[in-house]
């Protein structure tokens, strides 16, 4: 197949494989072929354009039947026109040029494309003009901010209660954690046997690992979810209290132990 294109246009076959996606449809592609080669739309060399068109659509993805069908339909039209032009005219002068309808469609499409370019710039102009309300009110704060009422003594005692992590020596060892939430549930419930409330820090006494704190807290949350407990804190950053929910139904806690956290 002899493909001769205008300068700067398509030369290699594989160009088509990639570029077919660039076209919005068969009319777009046809226009491209015509315009890049400076062809007079009113005198389209159907044979040449058909060959080029077929060459380009070889790269179509056969699985995308929808868009492939659209290109194939136009290819069929081109071939029909080509055939009609080969047939001898019956001498009737008012016979329409077989290309006329296609030309009308192409020109109409081109016009639409031109109009949509203008609309694009109108859209851009509009986007630079704003009405009232463009800058919205400041978003409302979601939570009321609590003023931090802390004395230096509080800060100092908090600082002192932080255990400094021992500097790491050697390679870190990764060990499986063995703390189960079930243990912590039992611990919490045991502590609440003879009183109605217990401090979170009290539950941590005797356990060194941060992980114990995490698991105790999770167990507390889980029990709260099950309405066995409720949690209270008098103010931010103060002691967290676990209280027994006196209205708790009997037996709800039985399953909790089975919610094993994968440790």
């Amino acid at each position, binding site marked *: 197949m002899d493909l001769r294109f205008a300068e700067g246009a398509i030369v290699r076959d594989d160009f088509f494989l990639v570029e077919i996606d660039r076209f919005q*449809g068969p009319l777009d592609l046809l226009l491209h072929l015509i315009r890049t080669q400076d062809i007079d739309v009113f005198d389209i060399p159907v044979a040449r354009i058909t060959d080029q068109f077929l060459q380009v659509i070889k790269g179509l993805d056969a699985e995308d039947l929808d868009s492939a069908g659209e290109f194939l339909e136009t290819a069929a039209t081109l071939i029909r026109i080509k055939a009609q032009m080969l047939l001898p005219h019956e001498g009737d002068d008012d016979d329409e040029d077989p290309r006329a309808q296609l030309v009308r469609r192409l020109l109409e499409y081109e016009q639409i494309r031109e109009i949509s370019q203008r609309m694009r710039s109108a859209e851009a102009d509009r986007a*630079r003009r704003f*009405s009232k309300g463009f800058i919205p009110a400041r978003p409302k704060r979601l939570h009321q901010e609590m003023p931090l009422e802390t004395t230096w003594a509080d800060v100092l005692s908090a600082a002192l209660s932080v255990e400094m992590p021992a500097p790491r020596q050697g390679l870190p060892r990764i060990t499986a954690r063995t703390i189960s939430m079930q243990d912590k549930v039992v611990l919490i419930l045991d502590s609440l046997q003879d009183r109605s409330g217990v401090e979170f820090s009290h539950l941590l006494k005797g356990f060194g690992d941060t992980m114990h704190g995490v698991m105790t807290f999770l167990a507390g949350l889980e029990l709260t979810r099950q309405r066995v407990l409720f949690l209270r804190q008098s103010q931010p950053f103060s002691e967290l209290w676990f209280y027994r929910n006196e209205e708790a139904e009997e037996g709800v806690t039985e399953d909790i132990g089975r919610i094993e956290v994968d440790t």
Partner: protein
Amino acid sequence: MNTPQIVEAVLFASDAPLTPDEIARADERLDEDQVEEALQILKAEYDDAHRAFHLTEIAEGYQILTRPEFAPYLERFDNVHRPNRLSGPSLETLAIIAYRQPIGRIEIEYIRGVNSSGVIRTLQDRSLIDIVGRGNGLGRPLLYGTTQRFQEHFGFGSLDDLPRPDELPIILKDRMPLQESERSSDQEKISEKQGLGERPADEEADNHVNEASQDSGA
């Protein structure tokens, strides 16, 4: 209080375009002509005083909008979400609908040469087009037309602000008489649809389809 001030107050308090008719509701003694007159006075005042905003004719109404040269300053603030720019296929489809409305999907697809149902749905979701009637053809196809929001999106004062086909640098003018007739019928449709607030009655829509299908079938 004089009329321009009343009109100004109404426009200031609104964040959408208002028609003179709507503005006139502010006072029983006002009629549309007086409002129009006041609008022209305000417009001139803003321009003469080099205000940062002007009175813009948009979507069959009037709205106070900032001048485009202030966009870079305003864009530095957090701002309310604005609609995205439209894609190429969306613009193409909108252009066809704007010029040929009311128009059905099949004709749109004939002009574009590709399936357009997805694009049509997107445009409908964005309220840029709407169903305006049903055609006479097989299955009484749905017909689409552009909406007020379409004009707002592009900043058109009315559909007359669309580029006229005869302004476009397109070759065919004198070479294809048939295009000539198509073009004039396009314009008729556009001017008939000027009052976008009123949807064309079904009957009227059907007539247009007949015309349009004759055109495309030619």
